[in-house]
């Protein structure tokens, strides 16, 4: 996958409509960007940021600064499913590294990469608040806990076969 977002499928009118809900309410910015990200292939491409800027009046550079500050926002294209593998200490000491390695091996990609079919992006992330059921990962908004390398691979296989959505 290229480092540029493919914006051919992004509906800029939809981006503008979501951004129009901003109405000078700064406390809505995060939510609006998250929503725009979800309709732009899990990323906020430059073109979308330009639209957001013109609709909200927030300078593009500030939008970029905002996006790049927060781990959950991305200006780089990502897959349909973002697999977030917690590597914080409570997960780490009960086997998170082995779970992460099994997922990397299963998908044939390293953390930070996206599968060639655009289905999965693999990310290491910090604590997702599932410490008492570690090791844990999130796939988009769904959480999976008490994982083993074997159960993690079964889970990924289920997603690949469309068995989870």
């Amino acid at each position, binding site marked *: 996958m290229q480092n540029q977002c493919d914006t051919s499928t992004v509906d800029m009118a939809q981006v503008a409509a979501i951004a129009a809900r901003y109405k000078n309410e700064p*406390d809505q910015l*995060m939510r609006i960007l998250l929503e725009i990200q979800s309709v732009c292939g899990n990323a906020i491409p430059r073109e979308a940021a330009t639209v957001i800027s013109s609709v909200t009046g927030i300078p593009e550079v500030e939008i970029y600064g905002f996006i790049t500050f927060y781990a959950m926002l991305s200006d780089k294209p990502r897959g349909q499913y973002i697999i977030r593998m917690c590597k914080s200490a409570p997960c780490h000491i009960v086997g998170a590294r082995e779970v992460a390695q099994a997922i990397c091996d299963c998908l044939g990609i390293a953390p930070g990469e996206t599968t060639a079919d655009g289905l999965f992006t693999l990310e290491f992330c910090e604590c997702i608040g599932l410490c008492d*059921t570690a090791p844990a990962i999130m796939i988009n908004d769904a959480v999976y806990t008490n994982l083993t390398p074997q159960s993690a691979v079964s889970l990924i296989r289920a997603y690949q076969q469309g068995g989870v959505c």
Partner: protein
Amino acid sequence: MQETRIALRFVGQYDTACVNEYCALGGYSGLRKALAMDKNAIIQEVNASGLRGCGGAGFPVGRKWEMVAAAEGGNKFVVCNADEGEPATNKDRVIMAGDPHSLIEGMAIAGYVVGASKGYIYLRYEYPYIFPVLENAIRDARAAGFLGDHIFGSDFSFDISVVSGGGAYVCGEETALLESIEGKRGEPRFKPPYPGTSGLYGCPTLINNVESLVTIPPIVLNGGAWYESFGLGEHHGTKIFTLSGNLVNRGVFEFPRGTNLRQLIYEVGGGCPGGRQLQGVQTGGASGNIINANMIDIPLDIDDCSAAGATFGAGDIMVFDDSKDVLEIVENLMEFFSHESCGKCTPCREGNTRLLQLIRKIRNGEGTLADLDTLEDLSETMMDCSLCGLGQASPSPVVSTLRNFRNDYLSKIEGGLK
């Protein structure tokens, strides 16, 4: 060991999609009672309860309320810090998923006391499944007249919005959190001014943790002395503890403050699985002190933990067994802080990276005894000079292991172990 559930009292006791079930348990009667009370009388009860902030800093809740109530300014806010990002803590998730109405009720009481009409819950992005629970509960509370205009026919109006975090640990720091709500990068502000006088949009703002707020309704209903009495000995009230790591039983449990850490680890946590022995405990989350197995006879409360060289934090207890490499855990923790430092101030931005480099150097067998002094010097500088709690506390794992696991360092340094 029997739990004493105050903050967790209604978790799992009602269908969160049904506000009537919450009311049937006595829900919103704390708010009803509060609105008929004098505001100062409520503050007196909160002070009498001895309740201290449950997010980690431990500031007396009643005193914070007093300050915001007394602050000048027509527009005030109540903000719930639900950005539970400290590794080894997940108690607030359990509260919000299982009892959202107690949080709403606690926030409304806080709003009444300090004179705010608007509340925000800043919820970390990593809990996407909590958003609908909170938003549905807020909608139901509004429909039932527990939020909105003229609550219970009084002059008091209050409403709550949920704001999403973006996956930044530093936003758990109260001023970074406010910046984030304001649609900015979550970089901490200089203090003073404190949020109590100049917070959200420059207005006086009360910021409390989820656990602190859900403890308020029962204190209003039953009195401060009632809550205070649950603590063991000189301790006040209860606290939720998150048990994680190498334990047979992990989870979220509420016990009287003053409960012994050893009892919690063995009687509740069941000790280490697989016949392993306890090697150490990180107390107070990723930014807390790591203590060794000989140090665990500690009454769990803020001051006792500090005096014993541990950290109380938000009641985070992460246990590791004797198969673990302590320095590897420290390396993992410093990777976390290097990643999560916002970069605004130099001691934190540079310091965490340098601590990580030194730990890696020592782990690789390339360390010297002088590196241990550098670790201590650098840690001291960070603790003294960092802008916010992140850089002030992040050296704790390094400093505490240099003290409590010194041989683990020395054994990796040539000529270190005599």
